């Protein structure tokens, strides 16, 4: 699904930045923006001090899938891991952002009555949380994290019935989220999987769904300069040859279009 973006970037104000475990939830007032479709993303840059970090970065805006939207507000979730997210982590209520969006193609509902199953983890939860909310009926979401602090971020997926796995076993299943997914697919293969997460996890989900002959929609991520098809930077190779741009053909792609999920 795709909601068209208003043409151009628009200036919006931060209303709050909240903690969610190891993550931050950024809330912005976007009264003029349309309601996005789950899986779509926005390009974000601060109006002040974008380019004032180490090595004068960040320079390009950063792409983020939205976590939730409504009441004239958009919410994004991120972890402070690089120059872009580090600048965003400094924001406080009243600070201003440039945003462009919503962009890209989001998730699609299957028409064959399959059970929706959400699987992912880490900073990949926002599009899954948004999709659970759009689907309704509290779908099952299997979410994997490094440890307890990161797993606390799962609370944002409040429209889903969440089952957690952690690498260190500090909370939920001790192991990989794909172990939970394998058990679920064995129990009820009449399922469609929606996934977002780090590349290695996404590739494991893709391989598992292929093995079980279960359709999957993957929300991919890649470094991108523009978000609207101009730069041709965010490509992934597809099975039928050539590349597709994640920003306009994705970020949600059917898993069977990919030979594998690229490592970066």
């Amino acid at each position: 699904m795709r909601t068209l973006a208003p043409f151009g970037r628009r200036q919006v104000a931060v209303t709050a930045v909240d903690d969610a475990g190891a993550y931050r939830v950024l809330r912005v007032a976007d009264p003029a923006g349309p309601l996005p479709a789950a899986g779509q993303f926005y390009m974000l840059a601060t109006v002040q001090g974008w380019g004032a970090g180490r090595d004068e970065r960040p320079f390009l805006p950063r792409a983020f899938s939205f976590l939730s939207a409504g009441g004239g507000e958009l919410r994004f979730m991120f972890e402070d891991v690089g120059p872009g997210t580090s600048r965003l982590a400094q924001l406080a209520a009243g600070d201003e952002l440039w945003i462009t969006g919503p962009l890209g193609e989001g998730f699609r509902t299957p028409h064959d009555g399959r059970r929706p199953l959400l699987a992912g983890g880490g900073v990949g939860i926002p599009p899954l949380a948004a999709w659970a909310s759009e689907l309704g009926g509290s779908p099952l979401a299997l979410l994997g994290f490094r440890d307890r602090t990161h797993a606390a971020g799962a609370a944002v997926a409040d429209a889903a019935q969440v089952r957690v796995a952690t690498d260190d076993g500090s909370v939920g299943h001790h192991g990989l989220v794909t172990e939970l997914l394998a058990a679920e697919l064995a129990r009820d293969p009449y399922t469609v999987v929606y996934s977002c997460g780090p590349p290695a996890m996404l590739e494991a989900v893709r391989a598992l769904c292929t093995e079980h002959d279960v359709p999957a929609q993957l929300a991919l991520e890649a470094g991108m300069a523009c978000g609207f098809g101009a730069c041709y930077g965010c490509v992934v190779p597809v099975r039928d040859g050539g590349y597709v741009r994640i920003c306009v053909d994705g970020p949600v792609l059917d898993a069977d279009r990919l030979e594998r999920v690229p490592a970066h």
Partner: protein
Amino acid sequence: MIEFCGLRLAHPIINGSGTFDAIAARRAFGDALLDDFPFSAFVSKTITLAPRAGNPPPRLWEAQAGMINSIGLPNRGLDGYLEHDLPQLAALSVPLITNVMGSSAEEVARLVEAVDARDEVAAIELNVSCPNVRTGLDIGADPVSLAALVRAVRPLTRKPLIVKLTPNTADVAAVAVAAEGEGADAISLINTLRAMALEPGSARPWLGGGTGGLSGPAVRNVAIAQVAAVARRVAVPVVGMGGVADGTHAKDLISVGASLVAVGTENFRDPRAGARIAAELKSLQIAGSPSTYVNASEPRPEVDANWVDS
């Protein structure tokens, strides 16, 4: 309205080739793009004879005040462009400039002839940042090679022929003079500067293509120097570009001799950058306010070697 090579344009701001995809932008923004098109003419991405998938990723590297790209000119090829892209680009309300590239004069001639036959195309831009298949050197880096290319294709079209120069050459003005001497109607510059980024902590190139092209504010002062050098030596109009992000930067390139200014990397940060920069330029020109940089016509302040604009 301004006049450029016989085209009537609403303002002096166009896009650099390969920095705005009007077809993809319409998918993202809908018909609002057509109603509010940011450029006074649209320059297509580079079209080659055969389709190209482009370079393997990663294709981008964020640099200090800019970026390095190694995209590899993905396009549908000439036939795909004429059948698929051109009818969609014809929906734009501004003149269309088609950018073409070939690795030999014969290839470029076929491209120019085919594009010349289409009424939707108002002008042709030659991308000469391409290695000559025989010498391995960029055609646009060598005045002799470039003169031969322009001589071969000039008679094939009556549409305005713009030659887009590479900055990766010893004497860009000599190359511009060679193009003008063989009948180029205009010169555009600069293309990106050849650059390399390393995968962090390694000696391996980060970009799938090995090297790439540096663009953005980091190259702005290179552009000013090269546009000035070319504009002093040729009589044909010059399209200046390189790191333009606001009206002041556009005014600087015009002040050293550019007739039009193209916006490239800034489009990625601001999809309506063209319209914004055109409006900023207009208000600067009305106000007649000086550049924020040292005005060359006035006495220079006493500064040391590390002087920067405060």
